[in-house]
C-alpha cells in the first residue's frame, strides 16, 4: 500500500521540478480559465487526424483531464475517467477545471463530478490543484466535499468529464 507515497506526490513533483523544471506546462489550463493572456502553445499540425484525439492513461494522475483534480480517480475504483463505479451516485453539483488536451492542443472545460454513497475508494489519490481556488470560489474549489444534492454525503471518488471546449483557435 503506497498511500503515503501518493499523498506525498506533490512533494515529489515539487522536488523533481526544482531540478528539471518538468511539468511546467501543467499549469496552463488553470491560468487560461482565469482569463490571463497566456497564448496557446503551438500545436503540431503534422499528425492531423479526422477523429477527436484523447491520449493518456486515465488511471494516472498525469492524465491531462485531471489538471484541477484532488481526490481518488474513479478509473481505479470500478468507474472510469467519466463514469461512476457500480452502486454509487454521481453528484450533480461540482467544480470545474480548464485543462489542455495535449493531443489536439485545445483547452477543455472539465467537470469533476464526485461519485458518492460509498466510503473513500482509496486508490489512485491524485492532487494537482491547477487553477484551484479556496472554497470562497465554489466553482473552482476541490477542497469541498461535492457529494451535495446526492442522497449520501459519503465521498467515494472523482470523475473528470469533458463538458465543453474552453476556446478555439480559428
Amino acid at each position, binding site marked *: 500500500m503506497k498511500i503515503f507515497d501518493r499523498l506525498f506526490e506533490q512533494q515529489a513533483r515539487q522536488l523533481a521540478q526544482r531540478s528539471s523544471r518538468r511539468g511546467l506546462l501543467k499549469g496552463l489550463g488553470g491560468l487560461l480559465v482565469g482569463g490571463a493572456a497566456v497564448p496557446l502553445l503551438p500545436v503540431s499540425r503534422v499528425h492531423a487526424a479526422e*477523429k477527436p484525439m484523447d491520449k493518456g492513461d486515465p488511471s494516472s494522475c498525469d492524465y491531462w483531464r485531471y489538471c484541477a483534480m484532488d481526490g481518488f480517480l474513479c478509473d481505479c475504483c470500478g468507474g*472510469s475517467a467519466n463514469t461512476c463505479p457500480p452502486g454509487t451516485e454521481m453528484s450533480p453539483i461540482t467544480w470545474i477545471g480548464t485543462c489542455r488536451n495535449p493531443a489536439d492542443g485545445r483547452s477543455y472545460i472539465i*467537470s469533476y463530478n464526485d461519485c458518492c454513497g460509498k466510503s473513500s475508494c482509496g486508490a489512485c489519490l491524485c492532487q494537482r490543484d491547477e487553477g484551484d481556488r479556496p472554497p470562497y470560489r465554489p466553482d473552482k474549489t476541490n477542497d469541498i466535499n461535492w457529494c451535495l444534492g446526492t442522497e449520501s454525503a459519503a465521498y467515494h471518488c472523482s470523475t473528470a468529464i469533458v463538458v465543453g471546449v474552453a476556446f478555439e483557435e480559428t
Partner: protein
Amino acid sequence: MKNLRKVGLVGATLVSLAGGVAMSAGGQPPPLPIEPIGIIETLPKDYPESWFLVHDASFFQMSDGKVYVIDIEGNDLHEQVKGTFNVVLMGNLTQSARRHEIYATETFHSRGTRGKREDLVTIWDQETLSPVGEVLWPKPKRFTGMPQRFAMLLIDNDRWLAVANFSPATSVTLIDLDTRKIINEIPTPGCVFVYPTGERGFSSLCADGRFLSAELAEDGTLIELTRTDVFFDSDTTPIYERPAVIGDTAYFPTLAGLVYPVDISGKVAKVGEPWSLVSETESEGKWAPGGIALIDKDDLGRFYILMHPDSKDGSYQGGGPEVWVFDPVKQKRVQKISMQAWGLSLAVSRGKTPQLMVTNPTDMSLEIYDGLSGEFVKTITGFGQSTPLMMHGSR
C-alpha cells in the same frame, strides 16, 4: 460495461459539440465531444471465474470495512477493481450465484461507534452493487470477530441463509431469502458457527469437542438437534473452526496438522479418521497449519492450506511461507507453493484452472499463484486496501 466507456473517450463525435465550435480546418483533429454526465457502471449478473470478493474488515478503521470486487486477470487497477461496497464493523460475507446476490452481516450504531446498535444482513445485487434489501435483527446479537467463512451459510439450494449469533449465548438465525424475513432462531448452546449438513440442516462446533447437528423442517422449524461423539479435546488437541468443504466432506485441520474428514451428507455430521498433513521428516521441522483464512478448496477436489515451520503455542494464526495443496481422497500432497515472502490468508478461484490468492501481510498486497503449476503470477495492490484478510473466490 466498461469497454463502452473506452470508446466514448476516444471515439467519434457521438454527441453534439459545444455551442458554436466548428470542426477545425487545416488538419487539426475535431474537438472531443461533450460527454454525458451521470453514468454509473454496472457489472455482469454472473461473475467470471477470475473474480474474487476481497473482504477488508479494516481492523484499524472498523467503521469503514469494505469489500472489493477484484478481477485478477486485469492488468492494472482499472481492469482489476470492478467495484466496492462497505461492510461495517467486522461483518461476514457469503454469495449466492443462483440469486446473484451477496449477503453481508453488518452492525451500525446511530452515532457511528456509539448510540443505538442495529445488526442486520444487507443484501447486495451483483449487477449494481447496490443494496436491494436488508434483514434487521430484532435484538442485536450476530457474531462479530475475525472474519469467518462459516459465520453464514446458504441452505437448501440458497433458499435460506443461516447466520451465527454470539452474545455470548450462541444461536443461529434462519432467514428466508425469498421473503427476506427471519423465520427461526435455533439455540446452539456451547456450539458456534454454521457448517453444511444434509439437505436442509447445519452443524455447529462445540467446546466439548463434538458437533451439534440441526435437522430443519420444510418450514424452517427445528426437527432435531443431535450431538456427535467427542472427537477432539479443545485444550490438548484443538481443531481449526475453518474447514474446506469439498462435495459431501468437510475437511477440518487440527492445530497440530491432522485433518478430520467429516461426512456432511446425512442429517448428522459423521467424523472420520484423521490423517496427517505432515510427513515424519516435516514433523521434525515442526511444520503445522497457520493463518487467518488458512484453507480453501478448488473445483478439482483439492484443498490448499497455509503451512509454517517451527510451530509453537501461539503461532497457529500467524500464517506461513508455504501453501500445501492436498488431494484429500488420496490423502496426499500434490503441490507445494512457496510464497514470495509469507502468506496470512488465502482463497482459490472456481473452475478448471484454479488461481490462488494469498494475502502478503508485510505490505497487505494480494499475490496470485497458479493453482496447478504453483507458479507466482502477479501481485495486486494499491486498490485502497488496509487489512484484506478474508477473500472469497466468486461463485
